[in-house]
């Protein structure tokens, strides 16, 4: 390979040492009071939310430098997706950010639908919204439980996972799987919701705000939590924008950027909801914004369920969507379409599309390049966890280890999304 400039391991070590400790040497001089300690947090650590490795330079308990090292769960999903036909790539794309599978799937399907210039039926759009908002609540519940655990409030973990279980039951009922449901399909959704699903959903939406109130009472009225979060590790809006941070972290700093409002997709403009924003951009705002988003998501789900239109749940374009099961036995044409779809898949006109949506952690942007064949020539997910992770170091420099853990929890990184 003529262009291979991969550094040898020794070069790598030299580079790593030079970038880690060079600006700190004046602190780490002969002065015993300022002796530095390098601590490898992770990849096996209870609070790194996966296999994140943080190379932390400490002065006492104060963080002086921090380098995230990632790649431990890199599974080459983007490469794998290039080897599968479009609709078979959905399951692998879903597995990137394993707490936001509906968002991954929708970003990919949305990009492909844009390339195909495909209209999605209104009922499918509403069902997508319902499931994505359920997914958002689910993701926020996992975040709330694990970050409370990182603060030491262990019971919250069980409470949040109890409610998450209700959402997973709903997912299981509508799609057959609790996680990685592959419910969102190119052109619509895989299936209509089953009978009884709506009643169960209504039960959930009626009790979720009460539960969220309880969690607020337990955490937001607790003096220790307030002390641990308020004014801790803030970062100004301009800094966040430079670092490309999106989602609740940016909104906590006062920027109301939310793609659901700014560039509505999938009928989000039909619903009446608010965008919670913070003021300071500290950990408390990050916490409060996410908790408030749970209430807003419930509102969206209720409106979508109330206004759920009748009609198809997937496009009637037989080149893209599978024909109904019952037609296979009677219609030759349906059988041909079915055979064509499951063997080769459908062909997509050549072109490149970047399709951004608002996920629980920020902007999920799926880039799809088609070369005209039935397999994508390039799939790339702009994962918010990956981009947001760069903000860890500027946020936490000069704070305590305990605040570093709390900030990391408020950052809510999902390593599956970071490493892809």
């Amino acid at each position, binding site marked *: 390979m003529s262009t*291979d400039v991969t*550094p040898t391991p020794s070069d790598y070590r030299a580079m790593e040492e030079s970038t880690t400790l060079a600006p700190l040497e004046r602190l780490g001089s002969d002065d015993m009071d300022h002796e530095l300690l390098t601590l490898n947090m992770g990849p096996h650590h209870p609070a790194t939310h996966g296999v994140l490795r943080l190379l932390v330079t400490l002065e006492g308990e104060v963080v002086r430098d921090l380098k995230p090292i990632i790649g431990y769960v890199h599974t080459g999903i*983007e490469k794998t997706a290039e080897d599968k036909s479009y609709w078979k790539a959905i399951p692998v794309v879903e597995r990137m950010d394993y707490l936001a599978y509906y968002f991954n799937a929708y970003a990919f399907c949305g990009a492909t639908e844009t390339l195909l210039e495909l209209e999605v039926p209104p009922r499918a759009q509403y069902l997508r919204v319902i499931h994505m908002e359920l997914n958002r609540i689910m993701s926020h519940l996992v975040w709330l439980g694990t970050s409370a655990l990182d603060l030491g409030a262990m019971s919250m973990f069980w409470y949040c996972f109890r409610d998450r279980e209700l959402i997973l039951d709903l997912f299981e009922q509508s799609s057959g799987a609790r996680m990685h449901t592959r419910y969102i399909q190119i052109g619509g959704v895989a299936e209509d919701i089953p009978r009884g699903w709506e009643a169960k959903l209504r039960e959930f939406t009626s009790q979720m705000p009460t539960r969220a109130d309880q969690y607020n009472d337990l955490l937001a009225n607790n003096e220790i939590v307030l002390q641990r979060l308020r004014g801790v590790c803030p970062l100004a809006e301009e800094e966040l924008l430079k670092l490309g941070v999106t989602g609740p972290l940016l909104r906590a700093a006062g920027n109301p950027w939310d793609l659901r409002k700014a560039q509505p997709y999938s009928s989000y403009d039909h619903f009446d909801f608010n965008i919670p924003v913070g003021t300071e951009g500290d950990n408390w705002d990050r916490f409060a914004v996410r908790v408030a988003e749970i209430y807003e998501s419930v509102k969206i789900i209720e409106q979508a369920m109330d206004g759920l239109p009748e009609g198809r749940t997937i496009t009637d374009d037989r080149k893209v969507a599978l024909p109904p099961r019952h037609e296979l036995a009677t219609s030759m044409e349906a059988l041909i379409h079915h055979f064509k779809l499951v063997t080769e898949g459908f062909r997509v006109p050549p072109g490149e599309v*970047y399709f951004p949506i608002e996920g629980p952690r920020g902007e999920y942007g799926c880039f799809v390049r088609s070369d005209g064949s039935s397999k994508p020539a390039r799939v790339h997910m702009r994962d918010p966890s990956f981009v947001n992770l760069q903000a860890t170091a500027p946020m936490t420099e000069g704070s305590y280890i305990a605040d570093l853990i709390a900030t990391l929890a408020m950052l809510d990184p999902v390593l599956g999304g970071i490493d892809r």
Partner: protein
Amino acid sequence: MPDSVGLELLAQDLAARAGADAVLATVYFRDRATVIVEPYTIVPVLEQLREKGYGALMSVHGVDYYPEEPRLGVHYELLDMNAVDRVTVKLRVTLDNPHVPSVTPNWPTANFQEREIYDMFGVIFDGHPDLRRILMPEDYEGHPQRRDFPVGGEPVLFTIDESEGTAYTQ
């Protein structure tokens, strides 16, 4: 999105400010505006677009256009948060000379993303503060997202084989 006329105006403006040969082409596809630029002008082009309001660099990603030439592409997704407007800037480099000026000093968000492109495609970003592999192991050989890099059959390195060095990648 700027419409197709707006895109042409934008491209003319860029050519006037960032150098006459900066803009190679414009593409308007599926209501999405794209400017294709010369690789060496990427920093002034992005700077100009920032002044026009496209201040947020949302995504940087790489593409391999195999078998077309020049093969490697780098895309910059820009966003104007006030006008809610997006524009994509694309550039192409060859395998023989895969050098692109880094935008990390001006847009810190590009740091990890440029490292990922370097890791996956082998595009070298000149001026990047810390250009190392990010997702693949540090001693890995090759750039796995290139289209001519085979899928599958990757041998797994176990502790027992460690003494054989990095031969597992071949």
